[in-house]
Each structure stands twice: as C-alpha cells, then as structure tokens.
C-alpha cells in the first residue's frame, strides 16, 4: 500500500479507491493538438476544447471541487481534493484549463460571495464551462497592488466600471473576471472593492481584450480595457471598501498558502506513490548533462556542472520535504513560515534549473524553439525566459520577501 493511502481517513480511503477506479476507465484520448506547457499558455481553441472537455468530465465524476459544499456544486467531502490530485497526478492526466478559476476565483467566491452567487457561479467554474481570469495588475499598479485606479461608480443598483488591467492571462478565452478596483479615491486600502464581472458577453462593447506579446514572442496574456462596463451590485464580493481583504484571500491561494486545496490534474504536482517525479525538472538536468559536451567530454563528468546540478536537486528535495514538514504540527517554528515561502521557492528553483539547463547545453543553448537542431526542442532557454513571469507575478519575489520578513520574522514594515 502506498504511504499516502496508509494515512487516509476512512472517507479519503474510500474516495481514493473510487478515483483510482474511475481514472482507470476514463483516461482521455491523446490530444489531437500539441498542448502548451501550462494552462496560462493556451493559445488555440483546439487546445482549449480538448482541455475543457477533460475538466468537465472530471468534474462530473466528482474529482473537482471535492471539498466545497454540496449547495454550490462541490463534493461536500473533507480534505479529499488532495486525494483526487494525487491520483490524477499518478496517471499523468492532462492539466485543467480553468486554472485561475479553480485556484483563485473559487476560494474567493466561496469565502466572500453571497450564497445565491456561489450556487450560480461555482458549478460552471468547476466544470470549466466558464473560464475565469484575474483583473488585478494595472499599468500603474504592479507590486504595489493597492494603488489600482480602475474605478467603479455607483448608479442605483449598478456599478459603472472604467479602467485598464494588464498581464491578464486567459482573458482572450475568459467568461468571467475577478476584479479588484477602486470605489473611493480618498483612501488607498479602504477605497478598494472586489467584484466578479462577466466579460465574454461584453466583448467588443464595453470590454476590450488585446493580446500582449511576451519577451519570448508568445502571447498568452492580455490587457483588458473597461469602457463604462455596467455590473449589477449583486456581483460585489464582501462590503464596499473591503476589496483589499478579499484580495488577500485570492493571493494567499495564488501563492499556495490558502485554506482550500486547488484541484490539479496532470504530471505537475507530485505523486506520493511513485519515485519522486521531479516537479521543477532538476532531475532532467542529469539527462541533459549526459547528452551535452563540455571541454571534450560529457558535461555529466564536469565537476563544476555536477556540483551545480546537485545544488538544484538538493533544493528541490528541500522544497518537497518542507511541504511535508508543514503538515507536522510539532516541527514548525511559525505557522506561516513554510507556506509563505512556497511561491518564492517554487519560482526561483524553476528559474535556476532552467538557467542551469541552458548553460549545460553550452553553444547549443543559443538555439531557439524554431531551430530543428535545438536540444530538448529549445525548451530550456524558453523556460528560463518564461520563469521570470513566475518570479514577477503574484507579487514579485521582492514583495514576498517583505511579507516573510514582516509577518514571520516580525521586522518593521518597509513601507
């Protein structure tokens, strides 16, 4: 029996059996098109259709939203999402396309929306029929998120929204957006409010979505412009002026430190049952070093390269073991100490692995995805560039270090 299975509650054990059996019979066919590396890089409707169909199927089978209440389309279970995730990871299912919906919008809606809105929004979010995106950053509000200027003005039961959001992943496919905006210009933090807004139906009218081109040449994120978008007051989450507190719920989940476990499917995310699959690719470095040359011999025999690969393998194992330790009550010095390090570590290990991989490739690391001779199909220099999206997004890592220094170490605030 697997280690994780031995620690299951009766409910989890039964659910694990169910997931395992269901997955055995329902693995999806191979995709008809090449899939991107992450949901945030979905570019074609063929990719989206295939992935959406998979999400719908897993939701209908009860593998998504397991821990959410029955009334809002959830499974009403206790701590079972991680079970479904582990089972899906073990058989390497395709990833779930509605990643912002599942990871950020759903917990925020659950904790802050009116009851009838939860029932209206969450089932279609879980099934992937509605794709969600996140309207937080603006041209003038990045790490200093609370300085957003997109403004909502109250007119009767409606709000009229004007403004400009950027770095909006999936907006080109999205039906809904979680939106942090300003309802009062005289207070910075207390002048913010939080809405969920339908954008698909307003495209070409009061909402404009335009692609932004990343440094890699890929699209994938967008800018979104609101020109008198009218939204009913019932789509406001929590009270007027409480937007910052609601946004904290979203951000905690985005950074992997939230209360709800995000539904995940696919090879990313570790399987407890297999020899540790490398999440960040550090073990791929070994294979790469074996097939790359340096000073006339394989890079795998170069002592400097060996040392640097070991550093990354150790960091990745450390990250994994910290996630394990975070669940052992007696082994923590501060309850938020490990959870708040998640985003920092994940993104920096990923970045350093990609950088080292590109370096191991040597001269061939100069070849892009467009070159037929590029090792690993040009994946590593591309991954290295894309990794900056991760170290910058969700609060740049410099902001994460402020948060850790202030909330965990108790150092004075830097602003």
């Amino acid at each position, binding site marked *: 029996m*697997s*280690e*994780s299975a*031995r*620690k299951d509650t009766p409910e989890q054990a039964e659910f694990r059996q169910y997931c395992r059996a269901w997955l055995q019979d329902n693995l999806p066919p191979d995709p008809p098109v090449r899939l991107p590396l992450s949901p945030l890089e979905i570019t074609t409707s063929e990719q989206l259709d295939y992935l959406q169909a998979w999400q719908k199927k897993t939701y209908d089978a009860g593998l998504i939203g397991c821990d959410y209440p029955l009334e809002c389309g959830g499974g009403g279970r206790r701590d079972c999402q991680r079970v479904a995730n582990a089972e899906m990871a073990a058989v390497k299912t395709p990833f779930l396309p509605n990643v912002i919906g599942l990871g950020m919008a759903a917990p925020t809606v659950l904790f802050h929306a009116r009851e009838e809105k939860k029932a209206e929004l969450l089932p279609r979010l879980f099934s992937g029929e509605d794709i969600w995106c996140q309207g937080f950053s603006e041209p003038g509000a990045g790490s200093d998120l609370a300085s957003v200027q997109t403004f909502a003005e109250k007119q009767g039961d409606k709000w009229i929204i004007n403004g400009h959001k950027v770095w909006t992943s999936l907006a080109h496919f999205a039906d809904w957006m979680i939106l942090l905006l300003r309802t009062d210009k005289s207070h910075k933090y207390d002048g913010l409010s939080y809405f969920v807004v339908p954008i698909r139906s307003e495209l070409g009218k009061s909402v404009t979505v335009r692609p932004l081109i990343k440094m890699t040449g890929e699209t994938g994120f967008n800018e979104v412009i609101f020109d008198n978008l009218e939204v009913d007051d019932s789509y406001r989450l929590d009270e007027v002026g409480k937007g910052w507190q609601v946004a904290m719920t979203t951000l905690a989940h985005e950074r992997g430190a939230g209360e709800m476990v995000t539904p995940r499917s696919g090879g990313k995310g570790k399987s407890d049952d297999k020899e540790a699959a490398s999440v960040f690719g550090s073990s791929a470095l*070994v294979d790469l*070093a*074996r097939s790359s040359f340096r000073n006339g*011999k*394989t890079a*795998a*025999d170069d*002592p400097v390269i*060996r*040392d640097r*690969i*070991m*550093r990354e*393998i*150790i*960091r990745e*194992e*450390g*990250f994994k*073991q*910290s996630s*394990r*330790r975070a*669940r*052992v009550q*007696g*082994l923590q*010095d501060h309850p938020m*100490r*490990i959870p708040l*390090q998640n985003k*920092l*570590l994940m993104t920096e290990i990923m970045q350093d692995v990609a950088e080292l991989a590109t370096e191991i490739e040597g001269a061939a690391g100069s070849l892009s995805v467009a070159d037929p001779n590029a090792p690993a199909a040009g994946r590593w220099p591309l991954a290295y560039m894309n990794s900056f999206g991760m170290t910058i997004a969700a609060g740049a890592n*410099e902001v994460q*270090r*402020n948060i*850790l*220094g*202030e909330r*965990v*170490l*108790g*150092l*004075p*605030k*830097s602003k």
Partner: protein
Amino acid sequence: MAQPTNFGFGEEEVMLRDSARKFFADKLPTERLHALVGDDPDPHRSLEARWDPALWQQMMELGWAMLAVPERAGGMGLGAVAVVALCEEVGRAAFPAPLLATLNATYILAACGSAAADQAMAEIIGGTAVSFAAINRQGSWEYPDTDVTVADGSLSGQACYVQDAQKVQHFVVKARCGSGTGLYWVAADAVGVTIIPDAIVDLTRDQARVEFSDVAAIELSDDAVAALNQAMPALWTLQAADMVGAAEWQLQTTVEYAKVRKQFDRELGFFQAVKHPLVNVMVAIDQSKSLVYNAACAIDSEPGKAARFAHMANASASDAAAFASSRSVQFHGGIGFTWECYIHLYFKRQLHNQALWGDAAYHRTKLADMVIGPVAA
C-alpha cells in the same frame, strides 16, 4: 519500507525536544556559556577543555547519551528523528559536551554488530563518553584512510581532529589491519595513548591529535568500511541538525537586533538590504531542517536511501550555517565584530561544524556519484 508522512515525529519527540530546550536555556544561557568558554580572548590561551562536567553528568542521568543505543544492548533504542530533535537543541545552545561525539560512536558501534561493540555500548549506558578517532593527517573523509595500524592486537600511529578528546573516556579508533580497515575500542587513559590538544577556533569544543604507541585494543569490527557505510548517514545528519539549531539561534538573535538597533532614524530591519537577506537565511534554514528530518526518517525507516538524503541534509545545512554566520556578524555591525558580542561563539562553532565529517562540496560530490554515477576515468 516507506517513510511515515510525519517523519515519525510524535509526542515523545516533542517532549524530548522541549525538555532539552528548557534544560539548555536554564542551565547554560548564552551569557553563562560566554563566561565559561570565552574567558580568555588570547588565541594562545591554555588548551584545556572549557566545559561543565556536572551538567554533562545531569545529561547522562536524563538518558540522552544512550538514546540511540539499541534495546538489545540495553539502551532506549529511540529513532534518529528523536535524536536529531535533541541535536538541534544542542546546536541552538552551542552546548559544550561530548553528546554528539557519544551519539556518533553509538551509531558506529551499533553498526559493528559484534559482542565487543554491544559491550562497549553497555559502557556508554554506564556513563562512558566516547569519540570517534578516524581522521588522518591529510584530513581525509574517505572510509579506508587512517594513520593508525594494528599489529598483534595493538594500535600504533595517530588520529587527527578527534572531537572532544579531553572530555571522553574511550575512543573508537579506525585502524588499518592487513589489507583491510577495522574499528577498535581504546580507553583514553590506556598505556601508550597521548592526547595532544589542538588550538582551535571554536570555543565550544575541544579537539586533539591522539597518538597511539603499541596500545592494547579490543576489536569491534574487522570491516570498518561496512560499518561506516551503515553509520555515517547518522553522523552527517546529527551534525546537520546541530548546524540547523545553531543557525536558528543566529537568525533569531540577528532579527531581534535588527528590530531594536536604529540607524538613519529607522530600525535596521526596515531596510530591505537587511530584511531580504535575513529572509534568505530563514529559507535556507527551513530547507535544511526539512532535509534533516527527512534524512533521519530515512535512517529509521528507509535505510537504503539514508546516505543519499543525509548527504543532501549535510550539504544544505553547511551552506545554511555559513550563510547565517556571515549575515549575523555583518548585520550586527561594529559590535558584531567584537569579543563581547555573543554571536562569535556561534560563528566559530558553525565554522567548525561546516567541515566536520565532510563539508558541503564533499557531500555534493558524493551525492553526484550516487545520482549521476562516478566520473569516467
């Protein structure tokens, strides 16, 4: 056998850790430690060990020296996870005592699997402190290397960098025996044993070169390499736990200083040039601590992976120790550079720790041999 998700860290381990933390904080708070070991700043000070044997006596009465002695040999037979919890506290207190040395010897003796080794462990239970005398003049960490040879049951030669040599009553000595290497049990006061203390940087330990001149010895094992293959992961992991505990003290002490010390009308910790590196120290400690408990858990329940995980833990902890040391002195500013500020005690202990039983680069080299395979000749 798979590892338990909670590392096997339960109530018993929490109690041991908490009582150890309280014991060290009560019996030897940092100012008393400094008075005890830092009495003489002169690098040419006398070489006698500075420690409190009465406290060591109390620690043995608490059973800490026999924690890892297997039950078959009359000990408590606790898992390595419990032992590292204790070692973390030893490091946090920078405590001068032959506890790690004796625990280390226990793991080696347990791996010998001989009646003589079981008898030696019975002596540990009876209050004997032990140190492993293994390193040659070149400081080699390779198992077969030694400057001691055995002939007709008698040892001759020298062992260098022997830890706590003035505090222990017995040595486990690694010696060449014909074409192989064996392990031997020798009393520190046996005829022909000469202990020549080193002058060392670390004030919380003593270390010596031990000379053996035709010393009668009891054979514990005729295959030191096999015994050490089994035991060394524990030594590396215990050492890493000591470093993690000491680094946590360095972090917390520096954080407290950064909250009160003001420059430019602000507390130091306000400045991101101070705040962010302190966060980086914390992250490095947490990574190492997690790897330490993982390695300890592997020793207890997944021995086939113990060496690999222990290399990871020790490499990570050595780097975290070096980092915590450098930042603790730097961020204390001018006062951090003086003898009166306690942080030098930890800086020096960490410097010693970092190279004990293999430094970070050594452990990464060994790990690479396991993960990638040896370098082609």
